[in-house]
């Protein structure tokens, strides 16, 4: 075997190993989560898990308030991040003059890299007191505050990915529509956005994923009260998310206890939820591709 073919062989194997390692890691993570979390399903009756009370010290392991808290904050944040993020992306990609565009894009990407604990701190000292006064609430640490903050955190992700997708739409599409007498807004709405559809959907999914997985910021501003959110008024009351629960309680739990296993069970749930979102995003993109491939063949 000559020198080049040997190094070629080694390199190929190395790259292959790196590629497969991510699958291995995901597998290991899931296995570990299962090993630590599955016992909770045996130790705690299902009826107690699907209950409204999370008070682990006294043996209440109802997951509904945590799941509800995560859902409320995620939906709230999605309503903030998706419209604002998409509008910003459209502005940057389609409307902004070149200098503004060259300034905005890096700024937005810088924003995406900010540590969330910093934003959480801003939320605690600035946003929460302001909202408390503005809306006359007993406390500013509520689901609504968390939604606004998480929405803000997800916006740069949505903007960045959606802008790339819009930017990748060939200029010829725009020109063709323009030559047909379409106005700028008509081009954006009927041509550019549909053409960038799969990328825009990916942006939305990634934004939602970012929101669900966010821990620090949400723990700091949502008040951490494990109460099942019911009705619209729950938006303005403290809640607690699944991620915040794990972060807050993992440090003080006895290894191998029921509480410990219950926290890992929450971890499994989170894992499954992100997996679900990613699969959904992938299937949307995939469905479009297969349709295009079908008609092209």
């Amino acid at each position, binding site marked *: 075997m000559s020198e080049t073919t040997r190094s070629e062989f080694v390199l190929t194997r190395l790259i292959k190993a790196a590629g497969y390692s991510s699958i291995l890691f995901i597998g290991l993570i899931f296995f570990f989560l299962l090993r630590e979390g599955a016992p909770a399903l045996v130790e705690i009756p299902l009826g107690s898990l699907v209950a409204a009370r999370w008070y682990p010290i006294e043996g209440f392991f109802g997951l509904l308030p945590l799941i509800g808290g995560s859902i409320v904050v995620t939906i709230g944040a999605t309503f903030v991040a998706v419209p604002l993020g998409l509008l910003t992306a459209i502005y940057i990609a389609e409307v902004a003059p070149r200098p503004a565009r060259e300034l905005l894009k890096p700024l937005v990407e810088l924003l995406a890299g900010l540590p969330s604990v910093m934003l959480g701190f801003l939320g605690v000292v600035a946003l929460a007191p302001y909202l408390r006064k503005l809306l006359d609430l007993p406390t500013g640490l509520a689901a609504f505050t968390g939604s606004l903050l998480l929405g803000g955190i997800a916006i740069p992700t949505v903007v960045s990915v959606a802008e790339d997708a819009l930017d990748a739409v060939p200029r010829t599409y725009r020109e063709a529509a323009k*030559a047909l*007498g379409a*106005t700028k807004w008509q081009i954006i709405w*009927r041509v550019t956005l549909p053409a960038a559809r799969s990328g825009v959907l990916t942006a939305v999914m990634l934004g939602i994923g970012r929101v669900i997985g966010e821990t620090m910021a949400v723990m700091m501003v949502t008040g951490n009260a494990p109460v099942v959110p019911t009705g619209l008024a729950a938006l303005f009351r403290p809640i607690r998310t699944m991620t915040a629960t794990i972060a807050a309680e993992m440090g003080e739990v006895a290894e191998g206890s029921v509480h410990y296993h219950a926290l890992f069970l929450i971890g499994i749930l989170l894992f499954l939820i992100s997996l679900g979102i990613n699969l959904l995003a992938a299937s949307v993109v995939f469905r479009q591709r297969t349709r295009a491939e079908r008609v092209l063949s």
Partner: protein
Amino acid sequence: MSNPDPVKVSIQHLSLAYSDGKESLRNVSLDVRSHAITVLFGPAGGGKSTLLRTINRLNDLTDVVHVSGSVRLDGEDILDPATDLISLRRRVGMVFARPVVLPMSVRQNLTYGLELAGERNPARLAELVERSLRAAALWEEVEGRLDDPAISLSGGQQQRLCLARVLALEPEVIMLDEPTSGLDPISTGKVETSLQELKHEYTLLLVPHSVQQAARTADYAAFMLEGELIEFGPGKDLFTRPQEQRTEDYIEGRFG
């Protein structure tokens, strides 16, 4: 020609420069007559596309820093800043070098422009779809596939769809920028046949993709070189007895 057709587009002393300092058109004067195919030909970078894109003001998209002279459509100066670009672009349709079908169905590609123009009557839309597809010699091939994605058509069909899309808007002038450059000879033949039919109703301005195509299709021909109009005249004269040495050299393939 003893009785020439009326002038549709009159270009007088048009000069235009892009922001990168390159002058793209230099003092071009040209009368485009209706009911005829006027061909703009010459080597790449000669300003043919720029000229087309000035006539429907598509150049507003890119960075043009300097324009002088006039372009008149039926006597009306379209370089006037007050020109309604939307209605101008409906009167002056354009087909691009590479077929650009919009990400919609075949039918929607045709009705899109019409809906933008305010046409909502389904019967009228259906009628225009069929008529424009027939005029572009595409109706037989896509009759049963109107709701398929337009991207599923072959390249030649896509280009004729683009032509049909422009025809559906019932423009007065149709500009075609190398409409057959990506097509096989059979599709090219079909497009050229369509053009010969269409010239009876419209004013056609064509940038051909070869000198042969220029000679085949031109009623009038303009030879452009580096932003200047070198020679302009009836096609049968220009291709058989060019007045300018440079025109003759190009036609005979001595450069280009």
